[in-house]
Structures are given as C-alpha cells and as structure tokens.
C-alpha cells in the first residue's frame, strides 16, 4: 500500500538517511526503533514532506512521487494521505479541542461546518475526550492534548498515521492513556508508522518492527523475531538496554 524507495537525506553535507527502503501494507502497524540521532524522526518527516528528501520515491497504490521532481500539487496530495502526530502535540493554541479537529476538515477538505463538527465529535469520542470539546489546549493535560492531536489526525481519514514518539513528552502517569488510544486505533485497522522508545508497547501492537541505526535499516521483521531471535548483533545490543514493562491499562479516562 505504501512503499518508500531509496530515501536519502543530508543536513549540511552530513548524510542522515542513507537509502531507506520500506514497505507497509494496509492495516500494518510498523514500529521504528533505534538509537537517538539515527534519523527516525527525519524519515517520518520525509514521508509527510515536512522535510524534503534529496533522493528517493514514495509510492501509494495509485499514486507515486519522486522526491527529486515534486510539484506543489503532489505535496498536498501526499499530505492528504498521511497524517502526523507530533511529540509536542502541536495543537492550535487559539482553538478549542473540537475546533482543532474541525479546522483542517474545513480548510483543506472543504467540508461544511456541520459535517466537520460531527466527524470531530466522533473522533474525540474515539479518543475518550467527548467531555472536553470546548477546552483550550492550555486547559488540557499533556495526555489529553496528545489524544486531541490523534483525533485531529484520524479525522482527516489518512491512509497512514505517522507517530513520532507520541508519549515521550508526557509525564509517566499520562503515558498509559495515550498508548491505550493508539493500541485501540491500531486494532481498528488504521495503518500506522510509529517511532517509539516504549519497547514492550511496540512488541505488543506491531505487525512489523524496523531497527534503524546510523541512517540505515539494520533489520526488520515481526516483533517475535526482532525481540527474541534477532540475527543482528547491533539489534541485540540495542535491545539489551531496555527491559519490558508495558502492561496494558484498561481504564483510560
């Protein structure tokens, strides 16, 4: 459904992504793990065109794009099919929770206010925030803000949602509620590309784990392979720094 081919990206002559190839099928939950500074965020940003790769291709089932010759129309097309959930939530500060979710539906998808409102209500319900519709971001906890931003992404009905360390800016006691929401939307069949340091969570929800190091994919495979029978020394070494302790919390509020 989505394929990245030979993605290269440099910052100031320093090559960060050194040729990334990745295939993602519909309904997949693909998790990228790897050491800090490896280029995980950069890769996600390239998919969403917040960063322009120097070289490479992205292909959807019916639409293909070579990063070296991109037109404005292509960028919009790409962004309509992908949605990004940021580490820092990045909600619009001057808008309430529901307005945050409605905004792009109105501006980008040209939906009527009423249709956008109903869709937003549905998505906020899905992330458990039906009682916070009119709260401004400053009145919400980090976990609640992140859930609004997930609803904002879901409302666009993208083909894939990109999560960049969605819980790493959160206080530990708020991590669970956000992971639960991601878990639940993963189960509902949404295609996900996720970067996280929550290893046991990754092991739990992913259909595929990708281990990246120094701008390259070192190893990829189902969680059981990567976490238990890794073939690569670097993967094992990286994973030895983590111990599994994610337990699903069933009562997110």
């Amino acid at each position, binding site marked *: 459904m989505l394929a990245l081919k030979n993605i290269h990206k440099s910052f100031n002559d320093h090559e960060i992504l050194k040729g990334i190839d990745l295939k993602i099928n519909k309904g997949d939950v693909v998790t990228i793990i790897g050491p800090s500074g490896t280029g995980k965020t950069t890769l996600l940003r390239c998919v969403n065109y917040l960063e322009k790769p120097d070289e490479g291709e992205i292909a959807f089932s019916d639409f293909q794009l070579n990063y070296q010759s991109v037109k404005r129309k292509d960028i919009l097309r790409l962004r309509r099919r992908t949605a990004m959930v940021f580490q820092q939530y990045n*909600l619009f*500060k*001057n808008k309430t929770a529901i307005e945050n979710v409605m905004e*792009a539906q109105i*501006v980008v998808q040209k939906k009527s206010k009423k249709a956008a409102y109903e869709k937003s209500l549905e998505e906020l319900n899905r992330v458990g925030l039906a009682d916070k519709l009119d709260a401004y971001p400053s009145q919400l906890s980090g976990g609640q803000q992140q859930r609004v931003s997930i609803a904002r992404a879901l409302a*666009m009905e993208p083909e894939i949602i990109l999560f960049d360390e969605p819980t790493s800016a959160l206080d530990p006691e708020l991590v669970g509620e956000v992971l639960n929401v991601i878990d639940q939307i993963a189960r509902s069949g949404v295609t996900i590309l996720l970067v996280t340091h929550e290893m046991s969570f990754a092991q739990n929800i992913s259909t595929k784990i990708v281990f990246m190091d120094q701008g390259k994919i070192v190893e990829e495979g189902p969680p059981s392979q990567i976490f238990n029978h890794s073939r690569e020394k670097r993967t094992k070494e990286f994973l030895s720094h983590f111990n599994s302790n994610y337990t699903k919390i069933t009562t997110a509020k």
Partner: protein
Amino acid sequence: MFESNIFFQDFSGILTVVPYTLGLALLILILGILIGGILTLIDQYKIPFLFQVAAVCLSFLRGTPLLVQLYLAYYGMPKLILFFAGLLNFKFDPNQFDPVITVIVSYSICFSAFQSEIIRGAFMSVSYGQIEAAHSLGFSSVQTLRRIVIPQAIIEALPNFLNSYLTIIKSLSLAFMVSVVDILAKAKLESALNFRYLESFAAAAAVYWLLCAMLTVVFRRYEQNIRKKA
C-alpha cells in the same frame, strides 16, 4: 495661591480637545502599525536594498529624540513636497501647509519602529510546531498564515498596540511645538489669557492622568477577555 475655579474652568476647556487628541493618536497608531508591518515584512524576507534602507531608518528613529524628528519634519517636509511638486509640475504653497500633517507623518514613522518590534514579537510567539502541524494537515502557507498564525499574533500584539496608543497620546504634547492644538497646547492657550500657569498645567495633568487611567482599565478588561483563549 491655587484657584480651584480656574482649575475647573481650564479642565473643561481642555476636555474639548480630548476627542481631537484621541482621534489624532488613533490615526497615528494605525498608520504606524501599517508602516511597522511593512518594515517587519522587509526585515523578515530580507528584501535586498530595502532591507538595508529599513535598517538605517530604524537606527535613526531609535537614535534621535522625537522632538528633533518633529522639527526636522516641520521644516523639512514642506521643502521636500515643494521639490517633488516642482518635478511633477503641480502647485504647492508651503504657507498653506497644515502642520498637523507634519505631526501625523513624523509620528507615524517614528512609532512604526516600535510597532514593527511588536509585530515581529507577536509572530515569533506562534510556535513553529503549530505551523508544521498545519502544513502536515495540508494547509497552504497562506491558509496557515490566515487561519493559525495571524489570529494568534493579533491576540499577542493587541495589548502592546494599546500601550503604544497611550504613549502616542502623551507624546502628542510635543505637537504644540509645531502649533497643533492637543491637550497640553490647549492648557498653554488657556493660561495665556490669565497667566494662571499652575492651574492650567495641573488641569492638563489631570486630563492626561484620567484619560490614561480609564483607557488602561478598559484595555485590561479587554486583554483578560482575549487571553482566556491563548
């Protein structure tokens, strides 16, 4: 001694020019914001040539007293207009030139330096993350500016604009120097009749103080209202 009836007489005399002063200050504020906005744009986009010119102008405006700028404009502007009128071949009589235009032009330009600073700060206050979020959702740059950045920048800038308004009102007291009648000028005129300087200046101080105190209360209330959203 202090004659309170003269004080009140002067006070009510001065009140008659308050609307004029408020209007003049508002006009200067708006023009200052427009020019300041252009300066900010030139600065942000580093437009060649204009960028250097703007930098020199800003440095001059910050580095010279308002009174000096006012005199410069008062004596310089009619000559400048005369020169261009000659070039473009239309009639201009410097003796008919209304000094209030001098005040409007020089004050607008002078205060545009401050407004430009305010506008830049307001735009900087909108976190880059929100702009990226908008882009990632498919907003164009113009849509991002219109729907996300500008509404927040306005909320951020308004209290500062209102502060500038008070500053302009008080600075207009210098306009007497070029024979424009504002609050202070009116006070001088009142005292010229009876030589009761203390009463009339006390009345002027009272008017300024009252005006600014009242406007401050109104602005505060208003600011608290819009702040709730940010």
